């Protein structure tokens, strides 16, 4: 999924979504400071709307109560 990878702070970062875990609570969609996430109209589940806007603040994966977002850093890519 090359479209989910960005380079930030000198390293590559992949935003990994697990839709099976997502309950569509909207926390990432509404609180991401860079508006990276969108909400699927049918299910309410999060999707990557604009990964290029990611500023690597790291908050989405810490806030997500359902472990549906993982930020995979360079060493693990």
């Amino acid at each position: 999924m090359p479209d989910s990878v960005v380079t930030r702070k000198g390293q590559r970062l992949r935003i990994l979504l697990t839709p099976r875990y997502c309950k569509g609570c909207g926390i990432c969609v509404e609180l991401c400071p860079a508006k990276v996430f969108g909400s699927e109209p049918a299910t309410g589940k999060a999707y990557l709307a604009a990964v290029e806007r990611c500023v690597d603040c790291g908050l989405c994966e810490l806030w997500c109560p359902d472990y549906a977002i993982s930020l995979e850093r360079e060493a693990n890519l």
Partner: protein
Amino acid sequence: MLSTAQMLEKYYLVDKLPNIWCAGCGDGAIAAALVRAVDELGIDKNSLTQVNGIGCSGRVGAYQDFDVIKGTHGRALAFATGIKLFKPELTVVAIMGDGDCGAIGGNHFIHAARRNIDLTALVINNRIYGMTGGQSSPTTPFGDRASTALTGSVERPFDLCQLAIGAGATYVARGTVYHIKQLQRLLKNAIAHKGFSFVEVVSQCPIYYGRYNDEASPAAMLRWQKESAVSVTAAQGLSPEELQGKIVIGEFVAKDEPEFVSEYQALIDRYGQEAAE
């Protein structure tokens, strides 16, 4: 810091996911903050023991790969006391809700604090009984609504951190789900502290507390946490009126006092020496 994928692989029973909690509940994020704190402290997962109570917070351990005893309502700290006293080498964390700890388990809470037993008590405060459908709890703010206080609570709430301080806890801190990175630090400090550590996390229950109090969106509730938060240091300069409705976050107390299990071990050692002589 562990990515979520790494965390799940190392510490979670992934086949049990997705978790049971309602969409937007804070429990999952708090559970992850705890696991990340444990990982950063380098604690072996065989020596971390978790005790859960009853309620939504009582499901934290069910998904995690530690020794976890999910006890009876309010008694998590009593179970934890037995484990720690018998096997002091274990790191013991008790996770409770605000009703669990502040109402039905109140006596165990103040006495664990008084004894200064080396446990960490993590209280997830969503200001309501969530599992049973939204009844008022000891931390429901005066005037806030719940299924048993439809026109607003006419009871004064507990400030659980002040209660912990009054009872003698030697580490006391409060965080929120919004301030998740700070929460991880507070949990690390609490677990590393030798003595009774108390961490209250102001969390969100969008389904019950939110609906009853017109704050239905989880994100809106997190924004409220952000906007209401005042640091311990900043709070010192504010009057009680100015602090009304604020969430004071950070470390209130971190001090060394005689710790119960060590003192008891010293007693055993003393008897052992006497017998040898």
